[in-house]
């Protein structure tokens, strides 16, 4: 489904420079006969937290998964339209999804650490991408990643204990550490706090705010408060359409679309 180059694709050799990290134009996604994403256009800025909100089943996860081509793994899923990362078409025939995913990391809804040690969890990405020349470098990457996931203090004495033995919130931060270890440019997070208690949620939210300094973060959330707290830009999805996209403050205080207003005031959802 991705094999033919999109006719909208620019020349791969001469990337167009834009101030947007990711631009999506006329993106449509079908699961078999289900039209899950309808003509979505969105521009995601660098070093910004962008929140996707909307009632469940509206296509937030589906759209997020388009951004690192995780939908490739679903047989019945067809994606069309243009998605560019730094001006390069990510669905271009020459793009290897593996290379793309090293640049666009992902954190999933349910914490899913590997059944390996904490160290091996974080070191896995750098290892398979050959990002560390030796053990010392690898140790350094692991420590840096765990620090940026605000987990270092809690686990530094038990790096070789199983990652699955951590608490839910710690596991999710471990997954974040694992995702940032490959030094991605964009971090996609699909409801990263939905399985966490309020304290762990607060920690992860704080973390997201810090991650913004180095990454472009896209976060899916069903909690409007969370979107308001962590994001600068917010996109509201409804029934597969992008209804409204803008500054978070504007969306929450002065929505232009009546559906957005209904949702944030609690009438849809």
């Amino acid at each position, binding site marked *: 489904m991705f094999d033919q180059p999109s006719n909208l694709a620019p020349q791969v050799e001469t990337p167009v420079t834009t101030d947007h990290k990711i631009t999506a134009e006329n993106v449509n996604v079908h699961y078999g006969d289900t039209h899950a994403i309808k003509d979505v256009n969105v521009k995601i800025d660098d070093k910004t937290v962008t929140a996707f909100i909307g009632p469940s089943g509206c296509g937030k996860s589906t759209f997020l998964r388009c951004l690192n081509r995780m939908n490739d*793994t679903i047989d019945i899923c067809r994606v069309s339209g243009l998605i560019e990362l730094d001006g390069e078409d990510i669905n271009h025939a020459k793009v290897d999804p593996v290379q793309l995913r090293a640049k666009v990391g992902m954190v999933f809804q349910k914490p899913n650490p590997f059944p390996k040690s904490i160290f091996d969890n974080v070191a896995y990405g750098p290892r398979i991408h050959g990002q560390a020349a030796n053990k010392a470098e690898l140790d350094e990457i692991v420590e840096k990643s765990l620090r940026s996931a605000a987990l270092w203090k809690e686990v530094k004495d038990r790096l070789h204990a199983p990652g699955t033995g951590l608490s839910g919130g710690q596991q999710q931060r471990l997954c974040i550490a694992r995702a940032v270890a490959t030094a991605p440019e964009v971090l996609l997070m699909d409801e990263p706090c939905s399985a966490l208690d309020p304290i762990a949620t607060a920690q992860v939210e704080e973390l997201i705010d810090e991650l913004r300094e180095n990454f472009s973060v896209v976060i899916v959330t069903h909690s409007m408060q969370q979107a308001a707290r962590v994001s600068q830009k917010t996109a509201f999805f409804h029934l597969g359409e992008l209804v409204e996209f803008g500054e978070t403050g504007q969306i929450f205080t002065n929505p232009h679309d009546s559906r957005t207003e209904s949702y944030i005031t609690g009438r849809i959802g």
Partner: protein
Amino acid sequence: MSLYLESPRTKKRNAAERRFQSYGLAAIAAALFFLVVLLGQIIGNGSGAFIQTRLTVPVTLDAAAIEKAEGSMMKTSGYRKLIVASLSAEMQAKGIEAELDSKAAKALLSSGAPNTLRQHVLANPADIGSTVTLKLAGSSRLDGYMKGRVTRESISDDKAITPAHLDLADELIGVGLLSKGFNWGFVTGNDASDLRPEQSGMGQSVLGSLAMMLVVLAVCLPISVAASIYLEEFAPKNKLTQFIEVNISNLAAVPSIVFGILALAAFIQFGGGTIGIEAFRASAPLVGGLALSLMTLPTIIIATRAALKAVPQSMRDAALGVGASKMQAVFHHVLPLAMPGIMTGTIIGLAAALGETAPLLLIGMVAFVQTDISGATSFFTDPNVGMPAQIYIWATRADGAWYERAWGGIILLLIFLACMNIVAILLRRKFERRW
């Protein structure tokens, strides 16, 4: 209504629950009962095969007699005379008056006893000229008498042994010349001809089964893991793969004799005959193993696919999410998690193959093997039998002694199976995720 009182609804529900539990208990009790009966039967009938009646004979190895025996056509008959003479002398020394005529000697001694003596002499030439005390196998009738299978009544029509011989046996027991001991020959020996059950052993068929199991493992494990991984993780889900999947399930339900005749046609007649592959000959464990592989493959593929399916999708997502390729995701994360399930499926498949008889009969793996197998290639290609085929052959023979051997063979088969399972459990432990 008070919480201390059971409402009628609760009462009914609790009764139903208790009833269900008692059904479950009854089912387990019945299963245990059958298991105990089965094991009791097997051990009761088969343990005799592991015990053998032996005559303790101090044989005087007269140099001249041995030279004469080695020089003659029927080498063992000379040794036989040596044994009979020594045993007679020993009986007299112990004060037994009855005479050991040649008929009595034939009735009491195994026809294999002279060969046992000859092998001893060939192995220890230094013993010639001295007297060595050997434990020589008794005949199968005598063996039956010692184990209670043969009685004075049951031999009324028997030409091989008379009540007088049994009286002599009683006297021999009295002076300690006749006793029972563990029968290593049964564990290590070969098949023997119809009239000599006391000399038969399962050893040859154990090697045959071992060779076949190695072939099955070497063929099935790589093929089924590769096929399952491809079908489960890589293949597009379309009509063709669906068709393949359905047919794999169908193959698992094909009667094993069909695979036997397929192996006969494909390996022996076409491979060995038409193409002329030397190793593909009838009765070879290699061919037997390939035949069993045909029937084991679908079982292992189904189990392996189930094990792969049971690995949560989140593991694959996690690996792909950090930029692992599909193959890396499978080999680094999915396969290790599926390994215990794959091991279990493999051992179930192997166990079924181990007990399979029908395909072996069709490809002629019922060879009568008298000589020991030597060397690695002949281990897989020399004619041999499998354990179940050997048991089947013995069970079809008439004498009660063979019946006992067949049961004894089943005990060895079960021990073999238990060993396989233990290896599998140890391997599983090694692979099992530790957290």
